[in-house]
């Protein structure tokens, strides 16, 4: 059992503290459940007593048909009790494990939405998804069936052995001789089964991935007549898969017959030694038969021991992972500061702002000093020059050092994280929409937005007409089960979502690059002239977008290479190169 506690890094008590309060909260439910479970076990152990009584009375020829009828009635009523009690423990205990699962699941989600970007870089979506499904399943299994089987096995074994001892201690010894072997056997085999089974799953994933990539590039495969190569690759994976399945089968093939084998060896020992005991009249034949019935009963808990140990161990490992996840803390921690009540415009000051992503060395931004005043600002520069990073810092997605970034003369570290975001609408590079209706998606920016506000935002984003052309207009479902939108449509929808909340600063991080140039220009012009926004910050490569801005910043390798408006920048080599390239191409 020392394997349960193999990982000393996180101490057991605090790990168990995740589930402990729940056990406390539901203690009456659990107590009743386990009480019912123990009762079931006891009744089941008593039934063989009645059988023994019946067989004995038959052997001694003292049985009458009335006494036998009564016996039958007693057995059936005992069985009826078992049915009732079983119903209750299942509902109470397994039900509890499901409640526990939900509770942890909810806590996990609440925790995750509080985390910052550095966290999401360390924990990929796939990992988090896996935790939320596999680990929670493992914990649920351990706290449900795992606990039940543990208690069940414990009670059945101890009482069963007690009864057997009361019939004949000597015979009990013989009966139990092979049992530890069974427990060890299942323990070892099922642990190995687990690892081998994981291998099968991996192979299966490989096959799936191979098929998926091949079929999604089918045109290329056929154009290059690579069918044969792919067939060979697939066949190789298939062979491996068959082999790893056989490895599992070898263990499975041994595991289940092994329990029968060892059970039967015990039976064999009992038959021989018990037979002799009956012959020498140490025990009665009825006792002998009852003994055999108890033996059958012990096979299951013995098998269960190995199984339970595995389930609980897996549950503990998962619980530990969940614990680690729940103990993660965001690095971006704001103060409690807020802006004055009728604050509407944001004025950022960067003072020698440098930044590199957590756990990397490369500086993305170096020593940036910059005033971002209300107005229309454009940022441009090569891929990787730090444009997006700058936007993300303004949005407080990553930590910044004290004194390097001020907002309205207050250090951002002193402001509550949400305080700044309240005033910013954001359009990221990668558009993410939700699988809901279009109206819902737009109103995401402002829950409870009226239909009028939604349509107004859609108009401003130049998507209104297209929405009306969809089968169900604003009620059209998008995403996997709904309508598939083009990249440009998605971006304009995301823009509408940002516009509907009418916040004073709009940040567009290259989020309109799938829209054609003319539409983009028109949308932006309308935004600027509408005066709805104190500030617009836009990251773009397109010159005609940059032209519109009051101020243009050129970033190069994390530094501000130049700033000024379109005409001022004409003399800057970067900007000039851009214009010149246009001319030579023409």
């Amino acid at each position, binding site marked *: 059992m020392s394997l349960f506690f193999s990982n000393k890094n996180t101490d057991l008590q605090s790990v168990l503290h995740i589930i402990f309060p729940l056990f406390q909260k539901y203690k009456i439910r659990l107590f009743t459940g386990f009480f019912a479970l123990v009762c079931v076990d006891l009744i089941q152990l008593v039934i063989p007593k009645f*059988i023994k009584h*019946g067989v004995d009375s038959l052997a001694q020829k003292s*049985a009458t*048909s009335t006494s036998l009828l009564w*016996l*039958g009635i007693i057995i059936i009523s005992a*069985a009826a009790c*078992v*049915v009732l009690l*079983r119903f209750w423990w*299942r509902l109470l205990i397994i039900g509890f494990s*499901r409640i526990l*699962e*939900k509770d942890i699941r909810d806590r996990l989600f609440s925790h*995750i*939405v*509080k985390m910052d970007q550095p966290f*999401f870089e360390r924990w990929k*979506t796939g990992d*988090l998804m896996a935790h*939320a499904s596999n680990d929670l399943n493992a914990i649920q299994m351990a706290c449900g069936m795992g606990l039940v089987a543990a208690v069940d096995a414990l009670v059945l074994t101890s009482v069963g052995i007690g009864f057997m001892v009361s019939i004949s201690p000597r015979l009990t010894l013989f009966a139990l001789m092979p049992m530890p072997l069974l427990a060890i056997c299942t323990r070892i085999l099922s642990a190995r089964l687990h690892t081998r089974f994981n291998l099968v799953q991996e192979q299966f994933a490989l*096959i799936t991935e191979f*098929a998926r*990539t091949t*079929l*999604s590039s*089918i045109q*290329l*495969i*056929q154009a290059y007549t690579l069918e044969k190569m792919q*067939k060979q690759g*697939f066949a190789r994976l*298939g062979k491996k898969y*068959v082999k790893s399945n056989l490895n599992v*089968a070898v263990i499975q*093939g*041994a595991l*289940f017959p092994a329990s*029968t084998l060892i059970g039967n060896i015990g*039976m*064999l020992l009992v038959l*021989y030694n018990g*037979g*002799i005991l009956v*012959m020498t009249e140490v025990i009665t*034949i009825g006792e*002998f038969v009852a003994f055999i019935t108890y033996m*059958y009963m012990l096979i299951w808990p013995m098998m269960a021991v190995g199984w339970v140990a595995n389930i609980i161990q897996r549950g503990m490992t998962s619980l530990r992972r969940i614990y680690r996840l729940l103990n993660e803390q965001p690095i971006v921690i704001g103060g409690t500061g807020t802006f004055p009540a009728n604050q509407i415009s944001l004025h950022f000051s960067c003072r020698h702002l440098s930044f590199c992503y957590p756990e990397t060395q490369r500086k993305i931004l170096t020593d940036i000093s910059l005033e971002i005043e209300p107005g229309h600002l454009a940022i441009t*520069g090569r891929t990787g020059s730090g444009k997006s990073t700058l936007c993300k810092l303004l*949005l407080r997605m990553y930590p910044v050092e004290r004194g390097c970034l001020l907002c309205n003369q207050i250090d951002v570290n002193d402001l509550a994280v949400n305080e700044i*975001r309240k005033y910013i609408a*954001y359009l*990221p590079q990668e558009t*993410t929409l939700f*699988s809901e209706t279009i109206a819902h998606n737009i109103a*995401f920016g402002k829950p409870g937005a009226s239909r009028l506000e939604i349509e107004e935002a859609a108009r401003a984003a130049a998507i209104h007409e297209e929405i009306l052309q969809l089968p169900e207009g604003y009620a059209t479902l998008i995403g*996997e089960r709904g309508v598939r939108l083009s990249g440009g449509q998605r971006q304009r929808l995301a823009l509408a979502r940002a516009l509907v909340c009418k916040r004073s600063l709009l940040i567009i991080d290259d989020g309109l690059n799938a829209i054609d140039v003319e539409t983009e220009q028109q949308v932006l012009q309308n935004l600027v002239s509408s005066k709805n926004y104190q500030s617009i910050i836009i990251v773009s490569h*397109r010159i005609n977008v940059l032209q519109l801005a009051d101020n243009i910043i050129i970033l190069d390798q994390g530094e501000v290479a130049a700033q000024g408006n379109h005409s001022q920048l004409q003399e800057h080599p970067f900007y000039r190169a851009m214009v010149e390239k*246009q001319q030579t*191409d023409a």
Partner: protein
Amino acid sequence: MRNYGYSEEGHQGNIKDVHLWRRILTYCRQHAKALWSAIALSLLITVASLMLPKLMQVAIDNFIAPQTSLDLSQRLEGLRNIIIGYGILVGIVFCGGFTQVVLLEWAGQSIMDHVRQKLFAHILTLDMYFFHEQRVGQLVTRLTNDVQNMHEMFTSVMVTLFNDVLKLFGIFCLLYYMNGRLALLMTVFIPLAFWLTFYFSRIAREKFRKIRTQVAVLNGFLAESLTAINIIQVFNRQQTSRQKYFEHTSEYLKKNIEQVRLFAKFMPLTDFMNSTAVALILWYGGGEIIRSQLSLGELVAFLSYMRLFFQPLRELSQKYSIVQSAMASAERIFQLLDTSPRLKDIDWSAQGAQHPIDGDIQFDGIWFGYNQEVPVLKGIDLNIKSGESVALVGATGSGKSTMIHLLARFYDPDQGTIRIQETDVRDFPLKELRNHIGIIMQDIFIFPDTVLANIILDQPLDQDKLRAILNQTGLQSFIDKLPKGLETVIGEDVKDLSVGEKQLLSFVRALYRDPTILVLDEATSSIDVESEKMLEHAVAASFRGRTSFIIAHRLSTIRKVDRIIVIDNGIIVEQGTHDQLMASDSVYRKFVNFDLQKQPFPS
């Protein structure tokens, strides 16, 4: 928890479909020996495990029970013999069981592997008409989950079906042999148990389906929230998301509790039947002993057999739903295997006539649409001389790529013919045709191996040829920039190549195959400036002396081609050299001017 059968859109197979069974069985023929041995082992195991209680009964009746007439040493001797027999049987059950499991797994997996390979190979022969309509996800499901489902049938079902049915049958024979009336009484339990378990598994399947649906909802929501986490946080919608998630988890909990309740109701019932049967045996069987119709040992044996009796019944009903879903999967797999490509390939070896492939290409009155109502190409006439380089220019959806699709014969034109060297492309075997056309596509297929392996693919390695290509096109510098040159393992040494690098790689790949006709479908997404320059250079170098097409998205790359063809709405609107077209008031000139506005950031 048990799997009550994977099923797609709730579809259940028809177990009574004889044709389907026959077809499944044809796949078993190769492994007939293994399967027959497994069945024989089934028989052996069943007989052996049924003999065990019988032996015990004989031991009790003849030797252990005090009322025998034998003396003690004879009784001991007899018991000893029985013990030896018992031991042998136990050994047989174990070895038989082990061998059977492994044997069946081997046979089952091999058969399924065969089905999978066959299906995969078949899918690869299907044409673009087919792939146009099918979703990749569904095809992958056929290859993975559906095959897996069928496999379930071989291992768990076929064995247990045989084992359980045999066991039930054997138990009945023994029971009737021992005491007919008591056995008859036990028979009552069979329909009862069957009805109960079938009824149960039907409801259980429904509950599981609901749970699975809810899991999908839950995971979908979680995945979406995680990808959109920055939006949720910036718009400060954490609370709303939490509430929604809690609603989903509550629903999930409700569905799970329903399932727990169902199991709580039904699971104890089988044991109740078991106990009832025991009570009946004691009461009625006891009466039979009093009436001297039954021996004590037989009664004990009856009791043991009853224990063996209920377990297979429960198993059988569970297997039923697995068989059902396996049949549904088999049906879907066979349906896919029966799909044949619409493009008819021809075989030269059968015809004897072989046509040379050269660079002269002729599009003659081509009409084509991916579906019948909307034509994409509306009467294309075009002659391209061997060695000529041609650029296709036009808006998205104008039909540029479609022309290439027809040339490489992914589709056949609805009207008109495409000829290479005076021969209709339909008269070339597909493999021959496509081997002569090197297409560099936007969709770039890179597999996790070395760059070298990604270049040569299925061709033999020819270092000199590769070096010549790299030098000629100037792409040696691209290779040199990779951490380990040609030996760089993609996915290990470098995480992934950039769009530009991928395009360069696939360019080398196409040239290595030494195509007669070269086609470049430029990447739409902007590639980095450096790669773009290299590509421009390589294109110019490799187009020399080769019939070549370029589908241009950035017009700066195509000025050097012999002829620019502007396509609009499926019709060729103008053609000529860059200078010719720029000199007139052409659509091309408008394109060029417009294109300038969205120039990427220069270096």
